[in-house]
């Protein structure tokens, strides 16, 4: 009973809905034959569909025709539906319902008749009608010979627009016809649907529509071929229009004004401009280059010849190309490109990005959150197929772990196979193994905590990656240095001996300080520390030993506390207890009195002593200087620092001018990322060397030492004074914003809410047939997946290319899960 009632209600709503959905036919005039023919005007085209009066009021064809009314009106073509009534017999009225046709008249002359099935949709209607009307403007050809004939006939006279579409009546065909309607008198349009013809002129990807511009007007020699430019965008009316516009623009323009101010039709069309910088002396050659570039970039960018000599604004001396983006407000870029191909690729690369950005705007989705933006994860993923020489390290398991680390001195890398940071570091670890191969007594091992979770937990490893050193009779030591080959190697090498080294004679102490004693180790520790204690200083010695042990693997420490220790302390003017610091690279030995003998303080003294006065700053050592919390005074140098500059700065250091700064220099050859830093500071980049003061810890201002001044003491002092007095302007303030999530996450909560609320409203059946009621459940299920917005779907297809293959494969596997 209930279900019966339901059906009844559904029936009613069906009727109601369908009344609303009735197509409105207002815009398509319905006339009798007599009336119709009386409206025809001479020279005017008109499309009429003749149908029986008693035929159904709606049909697919009529709907499409109705849609075609407006576009055709734009081309001055009227459209009508003519009802054949018994009283007025017209020859256009077919005998039977299914023989009805549409007719195209010009004035009252019949041009073409169309069976309704050729006019399958609005595109086909527009395309066919224009095709019929533009019979002369658009030549339809089927073979290469026809094409060559037309080409030859037009050489030196007119340009040709040749297009291939897969079939007549499809949207691309309509786009070409619409273009022909506008440009048909200016250019000769040639159309084909023959793939063979397209192939014979050397096109690739023949499954798509193609449009070429044949530059025949310029050709004077009849034996010469017309240049061709392929339109690379999809065939749409708008794209063809834009393409033809750029073809019409002059190939090369000469300008002598500020590139920032120059505007051509290209910019309006969203294409960038490329300026080839020319000078009087090389004008001819430059012009040839520019023309060559212009041909290559035709349809992609505007090319101009910029005459430097008559230019009023300054452009960088050696820039030979200026690139101006179509986007407003973006400053022009000055480039040095010594190769035409580089210019082309620069433009093409930038075009590419533009396109994508456009796409994304259209998608209304923004950047794709399914794309990896973690550099470690991404690089590890990209490198996953490379085979590492893992066999150089011993893989441990639950069974072998204890036995191995007990049997020999071992380094253990605890990692997780699925964690990117672990896997990135594993590579460095293997590099260490390669470097140590056959030379080290230390066994290099690793354990994958994804497999041997319990072992890692027992070793108190709760995060990855962790490196620990296990030595006989000692507690395991966690490595706390940089996760890289060099530092780990240093740690392992320095740990060949135990610290602090017990020095037993004056002679040995001297050897130790000179670096002779551990010749092979001092390359890993630029400083050797020797603690001097009188034999009675028990606690001080213990504290020092603790500090030395803490620093093992990072710096060489030794202890001397024999009876004759005074000899040493006198020689190096150190009152006991004291530290002697031997700087091997400089060959200097300093003494530091130990006021406090807390292990922690000693560690602090030693780590401070490791800092240099004017270090070369590197990726590895920046953190140690960064900790000082002082503004960095950095001299950027391409290659080794000029000794004169170094001397000047060291003099300032000695004169205490730089106490509140951390002076350092950066070698761009060793630290290429320095260029990225400079680029953030300067625009445009002045010539190197550059001296900047970066106030990292308070305010983030960056000050630049004037690049036109010599880096000498007097100038520096003056500049520093001005800085102090606040008379210098900063060139930039470093951005202070927090690190926010780079991209949003999926908002599953809203998706769940949306699904729940939709579920609720779905209970009221809409315009559904009787049988649908039973399928309600199933439909709801399908509907749920349809909740997903379409743009996401397209976005996914676009961006998931990389994983597309296995995604699809996975999908089909899933289907077979029950197998």
């Amino acid at each position, binding site marked *: 009973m209930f279900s019966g009632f339901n059906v009844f209600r559904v029936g009613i709503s069906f009727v109601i809905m369908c009344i609303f959905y009735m197509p409105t036919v207002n815009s398509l005039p319905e006339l009798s034959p007599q009336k119709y023919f009386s409206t025809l005007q001479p020279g005017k085209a008109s499309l009429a569909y003749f149908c029986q009066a008693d035929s159904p009021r709606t049909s697919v064809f009529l709907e499409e025709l109705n849609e075609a009314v407006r576009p055709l009106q734009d081309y001055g073509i009227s459209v009508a539906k003519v009802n054949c009534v018994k009283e007025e017999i017209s020859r256009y009225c077919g005998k039977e319902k299914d023989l009805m046709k549409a007719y195209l008249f010009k004035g009252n002359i019949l041009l073409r008749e169309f069976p309704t099935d050729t006019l399958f949709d609005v595109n086909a209607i527009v395309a066919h009608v224009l095709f019929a009307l533009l019979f002369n403007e658009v030549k339809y050809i089927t073979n290469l010979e026809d094409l060559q004939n037309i080409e030859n006939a037009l050489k030196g006279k007119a340009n040709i627009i040749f297009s291939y579409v897969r079939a007549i009546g499809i949207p691309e065909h309509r786009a070409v016809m619409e273009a022909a309607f506008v440009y048909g008198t200016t250019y000769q349009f040639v159309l084909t649907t023959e793939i063979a013809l397209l192939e014979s002129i050397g096109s690739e990807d023949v499954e798509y529509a193609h449009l070429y511009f044949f530059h025949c007007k310029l050709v004077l020699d009849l034996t010469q071929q017309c240049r061709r430019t392929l339109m690379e965008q999809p065939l749409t009316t708008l794209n063809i229009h834009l393409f033809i516009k750029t073809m019409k623009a002059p190939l090369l323009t000469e300008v002598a004004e500020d590139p920032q101010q120059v505007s051509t039709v290209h910019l309006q069309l969203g294409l960038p401009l490329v300026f080839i910088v020319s000078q009087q002396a090389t004008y001819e050659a430059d012009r040839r280059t520019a023309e060559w570039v212009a041909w290559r970039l035709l349809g992609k960018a505007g090319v101009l010849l910029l005459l430097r000599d008559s230019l009023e604004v300054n452009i960088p001396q050696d820039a030979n190309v200026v690139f101006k983006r179509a986007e407003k407000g973006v400053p022009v*870029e*000055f*480039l*040095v490109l*010594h190769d035409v191909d*580089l210019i082309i690729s620069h433009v093409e*690369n930038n075009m590419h990005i533009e396109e994508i950005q456009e796409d994304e705007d259209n998608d209304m989705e923004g*950047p794709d959150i*399914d794309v990896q*933006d*973690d*550099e*470690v994860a*991404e*690089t*590890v993923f*990209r*490198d996953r197929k490379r085979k590492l020489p893992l066999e150089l390290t011993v893989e441990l398991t*639950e069974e072998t772990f204890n036995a191995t680390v007990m049997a020999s001195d071992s380094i253990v890398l605890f990692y*997780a*196979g*699925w*964690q990117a940071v672990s896997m*990135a570091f594993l590579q460095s670890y293997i590099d260490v193994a390669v470097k140590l191969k056959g030379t080290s007594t230390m066994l290099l091992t690793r354990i994958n905590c*994804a497999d041997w*979770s*319990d072992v890692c937990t027992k070793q108190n490893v709760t*995060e990855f990656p962790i490196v620990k050193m296990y030595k006989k009779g000692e507690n395991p030591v966690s490595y706390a*240095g*940089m*996760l*890289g*080959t060099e530092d780990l190697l240093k740690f392992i090498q320095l740990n060949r001996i135990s610290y602090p080294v017990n020095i037993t004679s004056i002679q040995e102490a001297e050897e130790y300080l000179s670096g002779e004693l551990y010749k092979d180790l001092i390359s890993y520790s630029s400083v050797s520390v020797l603690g001097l204690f009188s034999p009675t200083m028990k606690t001080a010695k213990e504290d020092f030993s603790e500090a030395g042990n803490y620093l093992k693997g990072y710096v060489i420490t030794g202890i001397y506390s024999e009876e004759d220790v005074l000899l040493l302390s006198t020689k190096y003017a150190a009152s006991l207890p004291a530290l002697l610091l031997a700087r091997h690279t400089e060959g200097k030995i300093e003494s530091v009195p130990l006021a406090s003998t807390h292990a922690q303080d000693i560690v602090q003294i030693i780590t401070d002593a490791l800092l240099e006065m004017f270090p070369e700053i590197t*990726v*590895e050592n920046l*953190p*140690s200087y960064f900790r000082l919390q002082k503004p960095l005074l950095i001299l950027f140098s*391409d290659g080794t620092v000029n000794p004169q500059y170094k001397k000047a700065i060291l003099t300032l250091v000695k004169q205490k001018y730089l106490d509140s700064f951390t002076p350092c220099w950066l070698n*761009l050859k060793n630290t290429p*990322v320095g*260029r990225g*830093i400079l*680029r*953030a500071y300067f625009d445009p*980049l002045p010539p190197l060397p550059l001296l900047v003061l*970066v106030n*990292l810890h308070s305010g*983030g201002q960056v000050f630049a030492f004037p690049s036109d001044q010599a880096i000498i003491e007097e100038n520096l002092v003056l500049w520093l004074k001005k800085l102090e007095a606040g008379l210098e302007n900063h060139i930039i303030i470093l*951005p*202070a914003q*927090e*690190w*926010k*999530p780079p991209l*949003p996450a*999926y908002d*599953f*909560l809203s998706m769940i809410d949306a699904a729940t609320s939709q579920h609720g409203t779905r209970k009221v059946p809409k315009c559904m047939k009787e049988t649908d009621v039973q399928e309600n459940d199933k439909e709801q299920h399908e509907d749920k997946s349809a909740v997903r917005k379409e743009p996401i779907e397209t976005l996914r297809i676009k961006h998931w290319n990389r994983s597309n293959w296995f995604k699809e494969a996975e999908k089909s596997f899933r*289907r077979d*899960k029950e197998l």
Partner: protein
Amino acid sequence: MGLSAAAPLWGPPGLLLAIALHPALSVPPRRDYCVLGAGPAGLQMAYFLQRAGRDYAVFERAPRPGSFFTRYPRHRKLISINKRYTGKANAEFNLRHDWNSLLSHDPRLLFRHYSRAYFPDARDMVRYLGDFADTLGLRVQYNTTIAHVTLDKDQQAWNGHYFILTDQKGQVHQCSVLLVATGLSVPNQVDFPGSEYAEGYESVSVDPEDFVGQNVLILGRGNSAFETAENILGVTNFIHMLSRSRVRLSWATHYVGDLRAINNGLLDTYQLKSLDGLLESDLTDLAILKDSKGKFHVTPKFFLEEASTNQSADSITLPQDDNDNFAMRVPYDRVIRCLGWNFDFSIFNKSLRLNSGNAFGKKYPLIRASYESKGSRGLFILGTASHSVDYRKSAGGFIHGFRYTVRAVHRLLEHRHHSVTWPATELPITQLTSSIVRRVNEASGLYQMFGVLADVILLKENSTAFEYLEEFPIQMLAQLETLTGRKAKHGLFVINMEYGRNFSGPDKDVFFDDRSVGHTEDAWQSNFLHPVIYYYRYLPTEQEVRFRPAHWPLPRPTAIHHIVEDFLTDWTAPIGHILPLRRFLENCLDTDLRSFYAESCFLFALTRQKLPPFCQQGYLRMQGLVSTESLRQHRVESRLLRDYAPTGRRLEDSSQQLGDQEPLGSPLAPGPLAQSLDSNKEEL
């Protein structure tokens, strides 16, 4: 499962023994913890108490542990899987597929060393439990039947009262905390006219020879009913099965207590038109009558009421007299009752207020989600008897589930009575994604006790670090601070495992097309067990937990993330699993959780005033991640970082270089570097 249902086989203790023990009676021994029953749950609790060095005793009426398994299941085949191979070495992961082992630190005490059978023999379980108790030296008092439990109020006691246990010898034990792990030991009986004709599962013959050529009626539709049917399927004329509700197949309900495929042979023959069959009717509406030939007839009870006095089948109008196609018109030779088990309430004094639940939970004592009795503080129910918490939902009634809930109870007790906070690992925020990935991929407690036990991540101030708590009973979330001794002031994540919301049910088609979801944005529609992460800015209140939305295991969170289901339950795919998780966490914490190479950190350190957490906690502490040459190459190719390497003529001082596409020139407007890292994604 717990103590044997069968009466103890040994006689009352001798008088001498009683006298010898008499002095002890005057000063009853006091224990901090008393455990009733040395079945799996009792032993499991004993293990944790022992490891923690607590004062405890286990009382067991049989001479050995696991006496339930000496008789049950009657046909000796356990339906808990004993998966010995998973292809993985991870011991924690392997417990996901080991339904029989108890938790311990000793790898020898894994059930796979006790049986090679996938569905092992119950005798192996008995042997295993015996070894477990012996090897670990658990303090079990065997042959001790606790006959009576009562309360003794005392202000000094931990819970304001002591539990007074009296055993069969009259010996009294005083306990601060009582842990009841006696299982379900009383066969469930339904009262209807003629119920006395039914033989019980606990005593019916297991020899198929005894059923040759007979018509058999089985009452009940659980695993014991089907197990009984399976045993005699081949020799009977036919078997009819009668129960109130439709059959619930465990592979449709995802509940291991429902009918397992290993027992469902009768379903197969019923649907393939053999003579066996299933019928649905409420037993309490029926009556069984015996006729003169000793055969049994089934009839609705009201037929009986009409006839009132004479209750012989020969004289009463049976349904088939009026309705000649009545389904159960054939007389039966045997009627077997397989209606499950109830908790034994009889030994508990009323003062304990240990009551049974209602409806579904009638067979179970009423307890909170913390497994503590609602009636008396300090009384906990463990093991099978604690299944009311997750009956028909999760695995709390079975070894592979309650071994974890027992551990949770132990952790609660450690905090309540010994000020040991709930164990937690504190880690820097950069490890957040990894610690979740690690747990969802290996944790067995989350996997087995899905929807009941969940991991909780408590954020520290400013979200720079967090504490990771494992396997907390999520229904007690509101009381987390008092139960664990940890603070949840700065927001928390809850990591739970869930099936899809409309996926499980007795009438669900679990094999429909598109039942599995592959795309990350559809992850919330995942059907198979998958990790779900809830984010709360504040700890939910008790009200919010109680009045949470229907079908939600937890109150509505601030944000939720589903990690898309995975065919291999391996949630380590960089793009499919880890990336969306990281984005979710980032957006909850409003920070950037990406990892960076030292070189990038160096660049950030000198071009920005703030650094991302990874650089702060790694690079700036001199623990930066240095990239190798080949990774550097990939980095340039992926365009996540520009190539600054000076190669050939491409670079000259004072000029900008090729590929300088980023608008770095514009004076570092908000986020230029972040953009430079996440722009160019179309390249991937």
